[in-house]
Every structure is written in structure tokens, then in C-alpha cells.
């Protein structure tokens, strides 16, 4: 009986996947079409670049998914990302002479990201301020801090180790991609195989019922902000290793790209369900789309326009499908 029910489950899931993830399917078809129209698009170096590109944002998208599963949201990730690049570059230039110094720079950067996240978390859980407003305000504050710190100028580093880190590869696969994949794998494990992760699901699914079951919902809400702060800082370090500089201009679209990847992957904004693995796919699809836009020779502004439209469409579609689904009660 068990086997039979599992078989049933599988066929059911495929059908369900197609019904529930129209956006994903559309984008997949889109990238296939481009691949056919411009065969170069699927060339090896291009694919390699694609993965390089999505690694940095992907790390944050992965944690944004966790926040959304928990029913929260973080707009300030962009600014934390920016601040972390700048901080890391600055620290590298001071301490970068030794391996220990590099490690220290990375650790300090990561901790600063977690502190920012923890401030977000405290404001949301203690002062009970809507997470949009909180993180919108924090986004501006952190950006302000970054601007004051750098006086609006770019900070660059010529640290050799970190350059190798960003451009090097093992078995033809860039180091950054390994970091991304490991990060997603850990997140996947935590979300699926630990009570910590499951309680995040429960909190986002129905905080009242979760609380009745003895789950400390406020703690989990707080933690998702710390996690996303950590990931934003990690992404900052990854970007620095790639471009060897930090600037307030790098990554202003990070938070929204992360949301877009999450929704495209099939995690609903209504919370309580979703998966970081799906967001990995969502990020891939989004990466293909963005690459395709460049490949097709579209002007940068058109690219921005399309990115914005994509977000409007996926969020609206998600909300619409959810609401009309709920009507059946």
C-alpha cells in the first residue's frame, strides 16, 4: 500500500508542479527558445559565466526564500550587501597581508552583516513594526552609513589571494560556484532536516497554531533576519573577490532579484511553504533571462524595465492565484 501511495504521489506532484509553477515553465521555455535562436548562448563559457553570475545573488536569494517562508521580508539586504563589500575591501587593504588577516576581515564582515540583521529582527519582533517599513528604513540608513564611510567613492583592493578566490576554479568550476552550491545544500538540509527549519515553516504557515504547539515564533522571525544579514555579507565578500572593489552602485537590485527568484521558483509570498532548492532553479531561470537580455543586445535600460516587469508579473500572478485559490475555503 505504501508503495502504491508513493507512486500516486509522484504522478500527482508532476501535474501539480506544472499547474502551480506556470511562471517557471514560461521562463524555461523562454530560455530554450533563446538557446535555439542563438546557439552560442548555451556555449560552455557562457554557462560558466551564468553560474558565476548567479552565485553571488543566489546566496541571498536562498535566504530571502527562508525569510519569505517564515512570512517576513527584507528589503535592506541590498544595502547590507553594499556595506559588506565596502567594509571587506577596507579591511582587506588594512589586514590583507596575512592569511589570518584575510580570515579576520571575512569574519568581521560576516558578523557586521549579522548585527544588521539582528537590528532588523529586533525592530520587527520587539517594536512590532511591519517588516517592509523596517527594512526599507534600514536600507536607507545602511546605505547612508556606507556613503558616509566612503564619501560616495568606490573602494578597491588589489589583494592577490582574494582575486584568486574570485577568478580561480577547480575542475573547471569557479570557487564561487562551490560556495553557492554548498550554501544552498546547507540551507536545504537545515530547512528540511532540522526542527529549526521546520519551525520556520510552521511559523510562516500559521503563527497562531505554531505558537499553540509551543514554537517560539518570535525567535524564528528574529533569526531569519540574522540569517539573511549573514548571507548578504557573504555575498558582499563573494562580489569583492570577483570585481576586487566595493561600491554603493553594486547590487542595488539585489533584494528584488532575490524576491523574484524566490517567487519564480514557486515559493509563495504568503509564507509557510516553499523550498530553497526551488529558488536555486528560480535563480537559474532569472540568470538565463538576464543573460539573454544582454545577449540579445538590449540596452541596459530595457533590461531594467524587463526586470521590473518580471517582478510585477510574478508577484501579481502569485497573489492572484493565491486569492482565487482561497475562495474555495
Amino acid at each position, binding site marked *: 500500500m505504501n508503495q502504491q501511495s508513493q507512486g500516486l504521489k509522484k504522478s500527482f506532484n508532476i501535474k501539480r508542479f506544472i499547474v502551480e509553477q506556470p511562471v517557471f515553465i514560461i521562463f524555461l521555455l523562454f530560455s530554450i527558445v533563446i538557446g535555439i535562436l542563438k546557439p552560442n548562448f548555451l556555449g560552455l563559457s557562457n554557462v560558466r559565466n551564468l553560474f558565476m553570475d548567479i552565485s553571488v545573488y543566489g546566496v541571498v536569494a536562498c535566504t530571502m526564500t527562508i525569510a519569505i517562508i517564515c512570512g517576513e521580508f527584507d528589503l535592506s539586504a541590498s544595502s547590507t550587501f553594499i556595506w559588506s563589500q565596502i567594509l571587506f575591501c577596507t579591511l582587506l587593504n588594512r589586514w590583507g597581508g596575512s592569511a589570518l588577516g584575510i580570515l579576520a576581515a571575512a569574519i568581521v564582515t560576516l558578523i557586521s552583516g549579522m548585527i544588521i540583521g539582528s537590528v532588523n529582527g529586533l525592530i520587527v519582533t520587539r517594536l512590532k513594526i511591519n517588516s517592509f517599513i523596517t527594512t526599507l528604513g534600514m536600507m536607507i540608513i545602511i546605505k547612508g552609513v556606507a556613503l558616509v564611510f566612503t564619501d560616495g567613492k568606490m573602494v578597491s583592493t588589489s589583494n592577490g589571494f582574494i582575486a584568486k578566490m574570485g577568478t580561480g576554479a577547480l575542475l573547471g568550476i569557479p570557487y564561487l560556484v562551490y560556495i553557492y552550491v554548498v550554501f544552498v545544500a546547507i540551507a536545504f538540509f537545515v530547512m528540511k532536516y532540522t526542527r529549526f527549519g521546520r519551525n520556520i515553516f510552521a511559523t510562516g504557515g500559521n503563527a497562531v497554531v505554531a505558537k*499553540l504547539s509551543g514554537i517560539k515564533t518570535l525567535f524564528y522571525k528574529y533569526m531569519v533576519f540574522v540569517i539573511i544579514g549573514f548571507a548578504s555579507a557573504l555575498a558582499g565578500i563573494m562580489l569583492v573577490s570577483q570585481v576586487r572593489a566595493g561600491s554603493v552602485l553594486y547590487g542595488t537590485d539585489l533584494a528584488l532579484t532575490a524576491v523574484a527568484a524566490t517567487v519564480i521558483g514557486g515559493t509563495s509570498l504568503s509564507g509557510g511553504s516553499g523550498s530553497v532548492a526551488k529558488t536555486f532553479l528560480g535563480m537559474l531561470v532569472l540568470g538565463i533571462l538576464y543573460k539573454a537580455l544582454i545577449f540579445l543586445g538590449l540596452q541596459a535600460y530595457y533590461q531594467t524595465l524587463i526586470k521590473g516587469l518580471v517582478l510585477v508579473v510574478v508577484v501579481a500572478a502569485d497573489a492572484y492565484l493565491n486569492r482565487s485559490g482561497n475562495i474555495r475555503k
Partner: protein
Amino acid sequence: MKGITKTFPGVRALDDVTFSVARGSIHGLVGENGAGKSTLMKILNGVLYADTGEIIVDGQPCRFKDTKEAQAKGIGFIFQEFNLINTLTAAENIYLNRLKIRAGRIAWKQVNQDAQALIDELGFNFSVTEKIIDLSAAQKQLVEIAKALSFDAKLIVMDEPTSSLTTNEIEKLFEIVKKLKSEGITIIYISHKLEEIYSICQTVTILRDGQIIDTQPVSSISKNKIIELMVGRSVDMEFPKRNTVPGEIVLDVQNLTRRGIVKGVTFNLRKGEVLGIAGLVGSGRTELAEAIFGAEKHDDGIIMVKGKKVAIHSTYDGKSNSIGLLTEDRKETGLVLDFNISKNITITNLPKVSKSGILINRLEKQYAQQFSDELGVRTPSINQLTINLSGGNQQKVVLAKWLFSDVDILILDEPTRGIDVGAKYEIYLLINQLAEQGKSIIMISSELPEVLGMSDRVIVLNEGKKKGELSRDELSAEAVMHMIIRSEGENGGNN
């Protein structure tokens, strides 16, 4: 439970109730809405505290601070509304926050096996890896039961467990309940449906107006006797008389259908008539009202107002076609509690207090005062925020708001819910007054005596279908109850 008393502001919900259940029995608890069943059970579950009295489990007095403490004593609960997280699987819901960890990770295989075993043991075969949202109501019920069992519950309270189940599902549930009993688990079974009490309970306790009326073995009490005891004094309760003769047909509803909820309901309503709609919670009463008013779309059927077919796609259409709806939840959908009486009254008909779109303060005050006075809203001023009013007075404001809108057809959904006896009588008087003024009223209520006492005619709904119609002369609690119960039986046969 001994000598339990619970008072809410203005209402004595439970009055010195002593209630005991024998181990390993299925004990029915019946009573009308508001009789105090839920309050009693919430005290047992630790959601509410009793003012006086004590709970004794296995000879030990206990006092539950919260649900967890009740759980620890082996008391499990299955509410009408499920306490499950929709986005998670059945297995995970059963073991929420207690998922088994092995070798540093959740042993999903074990968790699913254990959960599946619980479900299988109950004689159902659906996969526990399904998400709650994909389960039927009956399956959700099973998950709740399995959850209670996983806590080693010795006593399980089931509150209207069949309200959203189909006939087949109910039968299965009964088998499970009987099985649980044979394993020595005690069940308190709350239901409106006497059929069910007879088919599974050994003992039945009748609760009315916060007091225990009687406890009897089901074998020694007739169905009619139970109904009589449940309805009791309320049947003789004085309802104000009115002298109206219903006039021409103003509303004609034909074959109105909302997929899966309202199934081809046909009825009409006359001028100056009060038409009662009787039926259990979940019978489609509210859903029918929403469809007529335009709050929800209907899939099929015709609505005719004063002989003309009208298209109603929105609440605005409803209002434009002279239909108003007093909703069952006045705090969520009836009033903006932060706004004053005046604003809440005039919102349905702003053109009446404005000139070319601009509000005339003087007109608004004048009308609001007039309607507030006419309905006898007791308040120092119409500038009072509605949140400060008592339930009865709030309801009068909602009525005033619909009178002010000048609609001729008024649907009143649970117009006396949550208000005290004196205020209820005033609402009845107002309803009569409206009917005498030529308004046509549809009255939906869970309190049968009220429907019987107030209506010129009653239609009975069950499971979204119209089950019959009773004229004033035929009206009686027994007739309505029998109609509902009989149709239950018919349903079983038909499906």
C-alpha cells in the same frame, strides 16, 4: 467538572455546571447555540478559566493554565475549525515541534511511518505525506484525531466533528470513534445532529442557557424529548406580535447556485413579509445571502426584484437593486468600530446627506440623529465611537445603516448573535416595525425559536439545498428539526 461558573461581561455563560463523564464512554453534549457548550469545553481545554468550580481528572483536581497542560493530562481536542498548518504535511502536523531526531537530522522516514501507522490504525488510507491543504475535511479530522492520540490522549472532545463531512465520511468517523471507545478512550461528542447522538453515544447531556438540564442514557430518552429540552423555555418565549399581511412578491430567487456551496435554491419573498431561513451552521445560509447581495458571485440562477430580472455582480449592484445585508459578523464586516455612529449610519447612502458629492454636515447629523433615535440606539451622542457601544446597540447601528440606505429588501444574518435578552427583544420589535413599514425581510438565525417566533414563513436549508418550506401554521421546532434530520437520511440514500 464540578460547579463551574463562568461570567462574561453582561452574560452568565455557565451557571454552576457539574458535568461528569464515565471512562471509556461516548458522551453526547447537546444544546442550542449559546447554550454554553463551547465555553464549558474551552474551560476543560485551558483556553478559558472558570470563575468558580474545579476540574477533576481521574480523581485529581486540576487547573489548566493552557492547552499544553490539558494535553499533558491526556485531554485532546478537535475543534470545528482545525488547528492545523495548511502548508505542511499531515505527518508533520501530527508531530509538530516534536519531530524525531536521529543522527542529527529529522528522521522523516520514521516520522512518516509513525504517522502513517496512526492513520492506518484508524482505518483510513491516505498518505500522511500529503499537505493539509490537499486533504478533505474528513481527512483533516483524522489528522486531528491522530495528533490527539500521539499525545496519548485519554479523553477526546469533538466539537461538531461532522459539520463539514459528507454522509460516507461521517459513517467512517463513527467507526473510528467506536474503535477509540473500545480501546478505552473517552469521548465527549458535541453535536447539533441528534441522529448522530443516537447512533454513537451512550449518554447525553442537555445544556441550556448555561445550565445542565438533564443527563440521560440515550436509550431512555426520545428524540422529541431531547428537542423539547434543548429548545425548552425558549419556545414559549414571548415574541412580539405583528399585524401584517404579506403583499406582492418583491424578490424572486430561482435556482441560485454557487458551485459546491449553494445548490439551486429557489424561493420568493413578499412585501412586508419576514421569511426565516433555518438550517445548521454550514448549510449554505450565509453563502446564499452573500450571493443575493452580490458580495460573492453566483454561478447560476436568476434574481428578480419587483418582477424585473436584475444582474447582481457586486455589493453595489445589490444595494442599487434595493437589497441590503446585515452580516453575521458585525465587528469584521458590519461596522468600522473606530468610526462614530453617525459615519457608520450614513455610509450606505452618502448622496442623501450631500449635495453634488459634497457632504453637508448639518444633513448628516440630522439624519444620523433621526435614525439613531428611531432605532433607539442608547448613546449620549451620535459622535460616540461604535466600539464603545454594547453589542445590542452596535447591532441597532447596523440596522440603522441599512434603513438609511432606503433598501426595501433586508437580509438579516444572525441579527441577535452575541447580544443580551433585553436587546434581542428590541431587535425583534424593530424587525416587526420594518415589516409593518413594508420592508421585506429575510431572517437567518441559528436560534430556531427566534426563526419560528418571528417568521411568516420558513425555508429550511441543508447542505446548500432547499429542503422544504413551512407556512406560519405549520411552524414548529419539531417540524424544522425533522425536516433537517429527514433530509440527512434522504441524502444518505441519494448519494
